[in-house]
């Protein structure tokens, strides 16, 4: 249970800081959308540096913000799952549903970020790069994480069924 405590503490800390970043992001979005002016600030969402501010980039940044908020919502769902684990309700229906939901949402967020950043790079920066790196791209990692959560949900479903069968074996 010590590992669970450490994980819960870390996720809670991450949740606290992400709440601050959400508020900050919303303020920045208001500034961007109403053309109040960014000054010398770097406008960067999920690693995508926005340099030109027109209607197109505003729309793209809105999509990026939505994908960021989806990831934050996934963090919230994961917190709920950890609370259930803490109460030893490992095979609860909520845990299964949350794992599946986290999976779908992470994949959605990955595609939103990936497609948006690609459109921005190709259309606005006219830069098409084909790179071979030894590190994984955040897009692939996020998709893998999403699929992992979906597989985890299915495995938990099988485990729940086995547990019920074991309990109902006389």
């Amino acid at each position: 249970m010590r590992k669970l405590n450490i994980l819960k503490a870390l996720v809670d800390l991450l949740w606290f800081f992400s709440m601050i970043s959400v508020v900050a992001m919303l303020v920045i979005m208001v500034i961007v959308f109403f053309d109040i002016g960014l000054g010398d600030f770097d406008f960067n969402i999920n690693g995508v540096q926005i340099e030109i501010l027109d209607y197109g980039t505003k729309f793209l940044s809105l999509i990026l913000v939505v994908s960021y908020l989806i990831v934050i919502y996934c963090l919230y769902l994961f917190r709920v799952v950890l609370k259930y684990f803490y109460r030893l309700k490992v095979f609860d229906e909520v845990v299964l549903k949350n794992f599946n939901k986290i999976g779908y949402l992470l994949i959605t967020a990955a595609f939103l970020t990936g497609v948006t950043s690609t459109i921005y790079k190709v259309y606005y920066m006219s830069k098409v790069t084909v790179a071979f790196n030894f590190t994984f791209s955040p897009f692939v990692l996020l998709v893998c994480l999403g699929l992992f959560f979906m597989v985890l949900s299915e495995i938990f479903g099988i485990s729940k069924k086995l547990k019920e069968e074991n309990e109902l074996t006389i």
Partner: protein
Amino acid sequence: MPIIVNLDVMLATRKMRSKDLAEKIGITTANLSILKSGKAKAIRFSTLEAICKELDCQPSDILEYSSDKSKDI
């Protein structure tokens, strides 16, 4: 489930209470109730053996297969 447990019939014919059978075969009355109601997913051979020994019957007297077609009729 197409497997029907006729334990209540066997108990009635032998005029034995569920509580007594549960005590004799060494399972809880709650588990025996699950078995009687047909909610059980599986039965151990050891439990089946103990029930058959106590009620002096065959496994076929306790368990019965009924196809789903009979329900449709």
